């Protein structure tokens, strides 16, 4: 049986990229770094009390009183175990990864909903992104983007982007045919159709995708710490590699609280959108 030298091809491919595209990667690195630093600057810069109020208000508007109370109590717990700053660092990384995943993912999802051919091409690629063990591309990521939050963000984007792409595409494909028919007979242009009919109706599904993307970003926290991303991942990593179960658990708890707050808030937005589109 002939052995396919897949591994060798990949290695020489990575070497070629490193040697020839370093300015390009340098540019990407600078851009992502600026975004992460920006979010970090805001999240850490805003005093805890004000941040607490903002979180509470946001949770109340989107998801009601219970979530607001939970969010405030959860934030207080994080603050009391001295992990607030690190949580904000992790949150900055997650926000950056999510924003970039949305900027790339939503247009891609819209495009996929309109083209069966692209749909066929993209699906195995998305499967790859979601199932390839992250360690496989972590090391090349360090080559291109150095140690720090940037390769962590890139790895997170690769892993967390597929749901927003898939669910955007699905949501638009699921808009009922009679609605499309009706708007067409009222003479709407394709772009009006997209922005005034399809996207609003697909919004709950798209928001479910956003929710999944955020949750997957959070599951990359510890893996990103292995390439120097810092934040809560560091605490967990230090905890598990030195058997400091207590510290590791505290770090893990902060990740869980952050995840639950973000989950309830994004789900809340989705629910209220769904209710609205039913009312109309």
């Amino acid at each position, binding site marked *: 049986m002939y052995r396919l030298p897949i591994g060798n091809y990949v290695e020489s491919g990575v070497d070629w990229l*490193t040697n020839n595209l370093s300015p390009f990667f340098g540019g990407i690195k600078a851009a992502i770094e*600026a*975004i992460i630093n*920006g979010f*970090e600057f805001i999240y850490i810069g805003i005093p805890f009390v004000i941040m607490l109020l903002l979180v509470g208000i946001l949770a109340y508007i989107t998801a009601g009183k219970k979530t607001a109370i939970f969010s405030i109590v959860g934030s207080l717990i994080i603050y009391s175990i001295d992990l607030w700053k690190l949580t904000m660092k992790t949150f900055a990384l997650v926000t950056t990864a999510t924003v970039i995943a949305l900027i790339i993912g939503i247009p891609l999802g819209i495009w996929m909903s309109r083209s069966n051919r692209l749909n066929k091409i993209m699906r195995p690629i998305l499967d790859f992104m979601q199932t390839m063990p992250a360690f496989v591309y972590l*090391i090349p990521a360090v080559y291109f983007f*150095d*140690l720090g939050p940037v390769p962590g963000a890139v790895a997170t984007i690769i892993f967390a982007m597929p749901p927003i792409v898939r669910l955007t595409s699905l949501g638009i494909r699921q808009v009922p045919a009679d609605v499309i028919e009706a708007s067409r007979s009222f003479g709407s242009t394709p772009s009006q159709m997209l922005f005034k009919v399809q996207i609003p109706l697909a919004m709950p599904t798209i928001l479910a995708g956003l929710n999944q993307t955020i949750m997957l970003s959070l599951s990359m926290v510890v893996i990103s710490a292995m390439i120097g991303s810092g934040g809560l991942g560091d605490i967990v*990593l230090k905890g598990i590699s030195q058997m400091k179960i207590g510290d590791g658990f505290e770090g893990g708890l902060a990740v869980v609280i952050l995840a639950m707050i973000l989950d309830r808030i994004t789900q809340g937005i989705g629910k209220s959108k769904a209710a609205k589109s039913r009312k109309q």
Partner: protein
Amino acid sequence: MKKILTLVLALVLTTGLITGCSTSGKTDEKKIKIGYVNWAEGIAMTNLAAAILEEKLGYEVEMVLADVAPVFTSLASGNTDVFLDTWLPVTHGEYLEKYGKDIVDLGISYENALIGLVVPSYVEADTIEELIEQKETFGGKIIGIDSGAGIMSATEKAIEAYGLDYELVNGSGPAMTAALKKAINNNEAIVVTGWTPHWMFSSWDLKVLKDSKGIYGEAENIHIYSRKGFEEDKTEAAKFFQKYTFTDEVLSDLMGAIEESGKDPLETAKEWMNNNESQVNSWLGK
């Protein structure tokens, strides 16, 4: 109400972005980036080095925690300046083969680190040969660490050389120490791949099995490695690293101080630095 809130949030975010952009991208002659892995001896050496570089030599030090392979990758690509925890010739020999031409050896910081098979002191075996007869007792398993580590390939060689009918279990450092802890708590026999300096020797009473065939090598040394060109553009720091060596006593003392304090290791390292002036001065060549 909602619209106003969203607007406020958006405004805050954009101003943050603008300021964030303007604060990043400083390049400084006096900046040093040290990569470290979460190993006790490395944490001790790295934090003390950071304390000395900052307080005595006026550098600005950034410490980045990562896994060992990414640290070597970053060192080889010139993005990280120094890594103080390279174990040679066995443990990290494979990274040297891959990246050796892109990184520079600044010398040995600790001599006679041991790697080998470790058992709790209450088990009967004292040599690797004795494992053969006591296969029942040890359950025919050697608990290892990450499959890529040098100590794992050395252990595979040992299994072959001594004719051990044992299975080497892949896992990770934490999984190995967890298994050790559990066995010791239940007073059971266990054999693991281990090394010194490691905190497990200060936590439990352990012994290293005699390796009559010398498969694990005589002893390991810990080296300090830097990126290419570090000596040229950060001469003073490179000179310090070349003198930065530890005796067993000094390293145990520092590691113990960090382990016991429970505070931020950098704070503890600064205290240690102030309490051990003559030692610090000898590193600085005073």
